[in-house]
């Protein structure tokens, strides 16, 4: 690993770490400020305005604190099982109204809400400690990794911009030098992802215990989440090494151009010009690693579907991008002159 | 080594020749005694801030002229006959100076007689009354 590039990576990771620490601190502040509202007692107090509401508290054999609220006036029955740090399980039974749908699933992080309409009454089950699919963490980690990758990209262009007399007079081949530089950046990008996941995990832990789900689509999300920013990085490396003079501009325009091209692929081919624009954009977008990440909308049951979109093939494309774009950058590096 | 050795790199005279001349002069003037050790080539090069090979060349020539001798592993020393040579060296130095003076005089067109007069006057100035 190249020392100079590693210093650059380390300085950037320090900034990333500071941002994440600030995030955790905010989470701690949030945790403290909402702690009043975390206990069932607060809810109960809020709900027992109606006369005729009966509240019963019991402790189950396994230590769970059960609160039963019965509001005969509203015909609402609430059972709150407080497992403490392990989360809460709440069952609300109330008369059906137009606000309720037949059957719905909502998943937000570890919170699961299932609403079932039984005709007269509707049951809503809230579980705050469902397992957390890793893909949620990866989604955020991906954004961070992409930002870090964009900042770090152009390491060889930076060397070409005034340091070739150092870089090319080393007792190691140009290839080894380039690989050492790229290795430092790759390590930095992956480290940024890891740090982000850890930070969000810590935030989660402040509120309640978190069970991470690594299975199925989550494993695929992790693989793609690691590979895609690396492919994006490699693409920018190749672009900036070949266009080494204004690499800052290349990096700055990368995101907007990628988004623009992505948007242009949505153009409906209503006429010849639109068809032309659409086709050109489509071809260009095939070269962009971001295109191959599937951002499918969640299904009804709350799951995200990576499986149905040729994951294996798309992952392979990202790996290929990483290798080919990286090789392109290195080829130019081999030929550069001071 | 007394600090009488200085070199002028900007002079047209090669540095090694300057070193040779100055060492010879030092011996003639008695500043360097017979058997006295000269600095090593490296040391003198560093002191004078000149290329060591320049110093080495000077030492080689001095050795060839039998003014100094070098014992491997022990250093370079002024030869005894280097000192007794000093009258010869002095004659060389003086003779060279006279040659330069006469060449210059001739080149501005002075006659032999005129040069003789100038020379007598100079002798008087430098060496005092000829009668004594």
């Amino acid at each position, binding site marked *: 690993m190249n*020392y*100079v590039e590693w*210093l*650059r990576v380390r300085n950037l990771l320090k900034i990333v770490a500071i941002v994440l620490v600030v995030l955790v601190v905010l989470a701690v502040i949030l945790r403290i400020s909402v702690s009043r509202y975390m206990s069932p007692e607060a809810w109960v107090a809020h709900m027992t305005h109606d006369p005729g509401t009966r509240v019963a508290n019991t402790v189950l054999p396994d230590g769970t604190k059960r609160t039963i609220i019965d509001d005969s006036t509203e015909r609402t029955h609430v059972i709150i099982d407080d497992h403490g740090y392990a989360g809460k399980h709440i069952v609300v039974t109330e008369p059906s109204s137009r606000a309720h749908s037949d059957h719905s699933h909502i998943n937000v992080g570890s919170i699961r809400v299932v609403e079932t309409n039984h005709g007269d009454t509707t049951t809503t089950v809230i579980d705050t400690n469902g397992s957390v699919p890793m893909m949620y963490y990866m989604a955020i980690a991906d954004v961070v990794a992409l930002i870090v990758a964009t900042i770090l990209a152009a390491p060889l262009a930076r060397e070409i911009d*005034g*340091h*070739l*007399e*150092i870089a*090319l*007079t*080393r*007792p*190691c*081949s*140009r290839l080894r030098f380039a690989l050492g530089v790229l290795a430092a950046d790759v390590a930095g990008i992956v480290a940024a992802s890891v740090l982000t996941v850890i930070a969000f995990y810590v935030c989660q832990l402040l509120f309640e215990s978190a069970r991470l789900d690594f299975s199925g689509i989550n494993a695929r999300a992790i693989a793609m989440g690691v590979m895609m920013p690396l492919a994006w990085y490699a693409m920018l490396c190749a672009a900036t090494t070949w266009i080494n003079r204004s690499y800052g501009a290349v990096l700055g325009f990368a995101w907007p151009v990628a988004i623009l091209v992505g948007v242009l692929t949505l153009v409906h081919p209503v006429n010849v010009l639109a068809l032309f624009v659409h086709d050109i954009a489509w071809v260009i977008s095939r070269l962009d690693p971001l295109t191959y990440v599937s951002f499918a909308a969640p299904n009804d049951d709350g799951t995200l579907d990576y499986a149905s979109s040729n994951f294996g093939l798309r992952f392979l494309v990202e790996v290929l991008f990483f290798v080919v774009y990286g090789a392109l950058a290195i080829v130019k590096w081999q030929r550069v*002159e*001071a | 080594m007394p600090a009488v050795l200085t070199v002028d*790199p*900007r*002079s*047209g*005279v*090669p*540095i*090694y*020749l300057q070193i040779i001349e100055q060492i010879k002069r030092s011996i003639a003037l008695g500043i360097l005694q017979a058997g006295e050790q000269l600095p090593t*080539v*490296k040391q003198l*090069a*560093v002191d004078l*801030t*000149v*290329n*060591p*090979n*320049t110093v080495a*060349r000077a030492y080689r020539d001095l050795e060839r002229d039998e003014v100094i001798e070098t014992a491997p592993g022990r250093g370079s020393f002024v030869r005894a006959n280097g000192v007794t040579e000093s009258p010869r060296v002095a004659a060389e130095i003086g003779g*060279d100076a006279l040659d*330069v003076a006469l*060449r*210059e005089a001739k*080149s*501005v*067109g002075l006659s032999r007689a005129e040069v003789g007069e100038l020379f007598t006057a100079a002798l008087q100035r430098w060496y005092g009354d000829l009668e004594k």
Partner: protein
Amino acid sequence: MSDMSIAITNLRKFYGHTAAVDGFSLEIPGASVFGLLGPNGAGKTTTFKCMLGMARQSSGEILYDGKPLVPAMFERIAYVPERSVLYDWMTVDEHVEMNRRAFANFEPARANELLATFNIDRRKRARTLSKGMKTAVMVALAFARNAEILVLDEPTGGLDPVNQRHVLSLMINEAAKGNSVLFSSHQIGQVERAAEHIAVMDRGRLVLQGLVDDLKADRKIVEGIFPDVTFTLDGIANDPHVARADRTERIVRLLVTADANAIAARLSAAGAVGVRVLDLNLEDIFLYAVSPATATTDIVAKESSS
């Protein structure tokens, strides 16, 4: 200790249609100090770049002890470029660490010693250093490399006279240790002290080379004044040792490459009076080689002592 010699044969380097180096050949012996002189734009830096593999020559060969350059040789070759190549955002200490990791024979302690000699604060970032201090840092890092060959492109650029002396002493110390130093400089005084051999480049070509001592001993100006303006020099001017003949009214100056006294005698015999043989120092020799017009008017005449 180094005996690695460098042989440059017919080097040509074109940038577009312009030849920065146009048929340059040179033999640099091992364990020597070699000065490369030349006006700005003569091709010295380009020659260094081709020598060290940073640029690919258009034609010609550069061999180290008969072999072409390979990266492993950079353990034994240290280079100080003309412009600053330090990383602006890194501190001097970090540059020292970078060298420690990159080169096996690098001595951080020696580097720190040298940096102290140049009065560099190692905690400072390179961007806060002046041009001269940046040069000093690069010089310190190179001389702490324990390299057999040092290639220095204007190693005293921007340095004050005290630091220039330090660099000169460093070069001489390396020579004393038996290492090779190849340097280019506009400080002719330094070249005169430190270099044994010099080569003069002009417009991409070699115009002069040799041992400094020999060049000084052999190259002289023979000057004579003729009684009237009607005289001919033909015979003398065609002498193989007469490189140039200049006449201004009755004064004739001949630049000779050897046998100054014999030519002086011939000039006297041809009727000139006031014939003198004048010494040339390295600056004069250099100016005559690259810029004859300037040389003629600026020459400082010194009576020859030989």
